[in-house]
């Protein structure tokens, strides 16, 4: 009984940290969020912002975190079709502030049936340590 209680107490802050997570990034013990600055569109460029943060207060304040030297961020679009899958042109990625990245020239090409996804990966020693998949269009 005491053991269960201790586990609950120990887990409580951790679960709270992810309580309002749109995207959970367990490797960083953090949340991620994608905001569309322009779009998303099919057949024209879209722009988004990707942010990493550890906590969110009731008034919406976020504590943004740096990925540091340990992780490299990779973002790309991916199309899942019935018989095959493929990517698109590269996204232009730039860091605009601590924990905040601008994703420019995101292009979801038209004229195909399938699911367009926005994916981001955290690479550690060139290996994928984390991947998040956001389905943007189901065409």
């Amino acid at each position, binding site marked *: 009984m005491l053991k269960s209680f201790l586990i609950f107490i120990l887990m409580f802050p951790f679960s709270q940290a992810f309580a309002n997570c749109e995207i959970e990034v367990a490797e960083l013990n953090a949340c991620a969020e994608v905001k569309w600055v322009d779009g998303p569109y099919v057949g024209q460029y879209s722009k988004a912002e990707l942010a990493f943060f550890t906590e969110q207060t009731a008034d919406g304040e976020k504590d943004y975190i740096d990925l540091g030297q340990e992780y490299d961020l990779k973002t790309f679009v991916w199309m899942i079709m019935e018989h095959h899958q493929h990517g698109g*042109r590269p996204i232009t990625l730039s860091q605009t502030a601590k924990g905040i990245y601008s994703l420019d*020239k995101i292009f979801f*090409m038209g004229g195909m049936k399938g699911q367009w996804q926005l994916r981001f990966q955290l690479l550690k020693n060139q290996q994928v340590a984390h991947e998040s998949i956001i389905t943007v269009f189901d065409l």
Partner: protein
Amino acid sequence: MNRLSLFLIYNLFFIVSCGKSPLFDHTSETGLESLRSLTSLDSSLHSISGEWNARVYWQQGPLVFDECQMTLMVTNKNGELVDFPSLPTLSPWMPDHGHGTSPVIVKRLEKGIYFFSEIFFIMPGFWEMQLDMGGERVKWSVQL
């Protein structure tokens, strides 16, 4: 010194003093510096009307995933560089899959010379290059 040596020196003087062709002497401009390096991937295009001919020079690529760049040199029937009334557009297209790729950027470098960048072949396969210029569509293919 015999007459042959004098003849060779005389000709060498002219060859050395010629310098770069005005066509290729634009090294400060993007893309043109490598016009001289023709490869088997370059293509010749001809208008249906017979009014112009064009030559495609790949500066980067064509290859899959990375950015490709090419220059288009347009000449009239007399071999003189000529402009189109408006900027040409390039649309790479995969007929087997029924889709293209992201928009290609085109820039006029000088009379009759156009530079295309941000060409992304997003997957291997048969690509049809659709070039719209001067009211005509000209196609050629790229297999990747």
